[in-house]
């Protein structure tokens, strides 16, 4: 066990994989000489040299596509997309090419590539640089999608993704880069496996990314006995862990950073409802951001994503009333 920053956990994962597998390579904008815009590739150029660690032109379509080809032909490329929004100019290569290659080759080839991208709000980057955008990937058979939530998941799941034979997109909540946490390098955590972060008996909270810590604080503040699950892998998600927990608690809330509409949370709620209807003590529901672009101004951005106060309020409310709580903006008559 060692304490390190989230970004250092990523550096460690990349370095350990590069040490153990000479076909692993990393490229992206300013990942080599500058060691990454968020310092997630510190020391890698020095240790692994310019053939394996490369700066790219500003060409997301070009270098993401190059990763697809390189992965098929025997490399294990990791590409860094500085902000997840930039895949808007290159989604084709991930969703329409990489994810379908195995299927279209009748199982004869694999695409062991990893796309890492920073995501999320909270740092004043404005509406084109603050989204999570899981929805771009969630309906793509052939593609795996991970959302990191702390140094441990950063280390373990980044390694797992590089070892995975299929294309994997990893979302890294930007706000966590500097946050420290314990990392057990030997911990076993697979892609597709959710993490029970805190046991509880009365309600299951499914969350991911930067919302996991918010939920922890909200649970403490509310006093509710909530079982907190970090979904970790959004696709394919861990039905068993989630449904087992909901069976036990009888209640479910999903806490998401994304806007209400179109988020992965609806998938969890819909699946749990269809599967466990008779065993539910209350309606499963979601706590999310409102359906608006991410605002820039500090006081607004702070309110944009679910706050610990609001999550705590809703936890207490569902426990006492059994009803789906209103959103904060409904309560305040906004929108």
């Amino acid at each position, binding site marked *: 066990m060692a304490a390190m920053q989230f970004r250092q956990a990523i550096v460690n994962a990349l370095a350990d994989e590069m040490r153990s597998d000479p076909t692993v390579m990393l490229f992206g904008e300013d990942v080599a000489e500058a060691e990454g815009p968020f310092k997630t590739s510190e020391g890698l150029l020095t240790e692994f040299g310019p053939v394996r660690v490369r700066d790219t032109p500003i060409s997301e379509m070009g270098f993401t*596509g190059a990763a*697809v080809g390189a992965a098929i032909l025997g490399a294990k490329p990791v590409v860094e997309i500085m902000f997840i929004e930039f895949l808007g100019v290159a989604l084709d290569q991930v969703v329409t090419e990489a994810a379908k*290659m195995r299927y*279209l080759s*009748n199982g004869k080839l694999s695409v062991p590539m990893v796309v890492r991208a920073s995501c999320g709000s909270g740092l004043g980057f404005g509406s084109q640089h603050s989204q999570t955008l899981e929805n771009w990937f969630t309906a793509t058979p052939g593609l795996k999608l991970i959302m990191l939530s702390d140094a441990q998941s950063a280390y373990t799941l980044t390694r797992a993704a590089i070892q995975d034979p299929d294309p994997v997109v990893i979302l890294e909540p930007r706000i966590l880069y500097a946050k420290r946490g314990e990392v057990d390098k030997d911990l076993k955590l697979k892609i597709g496996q959710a993490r029970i972060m805190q046991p509880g008996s009365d309600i299951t909270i499914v969350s991911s990314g930067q919302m996991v810590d918010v939920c922890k604080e909200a649970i403490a503040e509310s006093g509710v006995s909530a079982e907190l699950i970090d979904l970790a892998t959004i696709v394919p998600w861990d039905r068993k862990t989630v449904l087992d927990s909901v069976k036990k608690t009888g209640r479910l809330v999903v806490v998401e950073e994304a806007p209400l509409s179109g988020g992965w949370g609806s998938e969890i709620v819909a699946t749990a409802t269809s599967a466990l209807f008779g065993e539910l003590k209350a309606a499963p529901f979601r706590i999310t951001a409102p359906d608006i672009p991410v605002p820039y101004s500090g006081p607004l951005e702070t309110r944009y994503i679910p706050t610990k106060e609001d999550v705590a309020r809703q936890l207490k409310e569902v426990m006492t009333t059994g009803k789906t709580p209103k959103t904060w903006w409904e309560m305040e008559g906004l929108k």
Partner: protein
Amino acid sequence: MSAQLERRKAVQTDEVAGYERMLEIREFENQINGLFAAGLIRGTTHLCLGQEALDIAIAAELRPSDTVMATYRGHGVALALGLTPESVLGEIMGKTNGCCGGVGGSMHLADMSVGLLPTSAIVGGGIPIAAGAALAYQLLGQDNVGVAIFGDGATNIGAFHEGLNLAAIWNLPAIFICDNNVYGEYSRIDKTTPLEDLHMRAESYKMPHYAVDGMDVAATRKGIKEAVDRARSGGGPTLIEAKTYRFAGHSRADKALYRPEGELEKWQERDPIKLTEEGLVKRGLLDAAKIEKMRADMTKTIEGVVATCQAAPSPTVASMFENVFTS
């Protein structure tokens, strides 16, 4: 040696076999046309009639260990690289004997044993992927090359620009082959592109570039060989523009009525099969009788393939659930 590798070797070592393969492609495409008209194939298809020289030249100059990323207009290159007519037609008909077991279709042919990645149905999509194959070779210290084949229209899409720039700056062993068949769908290239000689666009990347006569196998081979030699020896990428012509419409339904009068006929005078035939006859490698027999045999062969594929089973419903993920 697998059937595919043997077929590949033939076009690499024997010009008459190369000619025969061109006949095969021609016959194959004509049959496809008929099968579609008869409603025996569904979906869409993009024929390469008139462009056989380019496909053969590529297959002849590349090794099976090189990688080719081609497009939906891929029947010819697949056959040239060595895929059997049965595995290509089977795929087009969605049968289990198809090269992808029938889940891919006409636009997605693949056989890695001769270097053919699943062809892409996204214009320009394969260009960065071919650069990526070249990147893997560079990383692994292999002297293979990554090749992208794409159309004239594809030179207007961003992936072309980004793929070439990346290959240039990383000095990748890549070859970009623009099959300029004068049309992108129903649009003549001069309607969408202000430049006539598309290979000139490589100037933006300080990449070597030139045009070749895409109707002439020897000329095209020479151009490709130069690029292959450069790539294998660490000299970096090349953009080649093969000047060809699409004898058929863009896809299944297209009668190509938008072509200026006489344009097709002018190009047909330089039909690559005719040119090759003439050359081989002149050099005494073929004569009229042999040609007639080869043509007749080929017609029969392809008819046999059609019969085989029609009789081949469709995939089971269970099979569509396979190969989504590796694990």
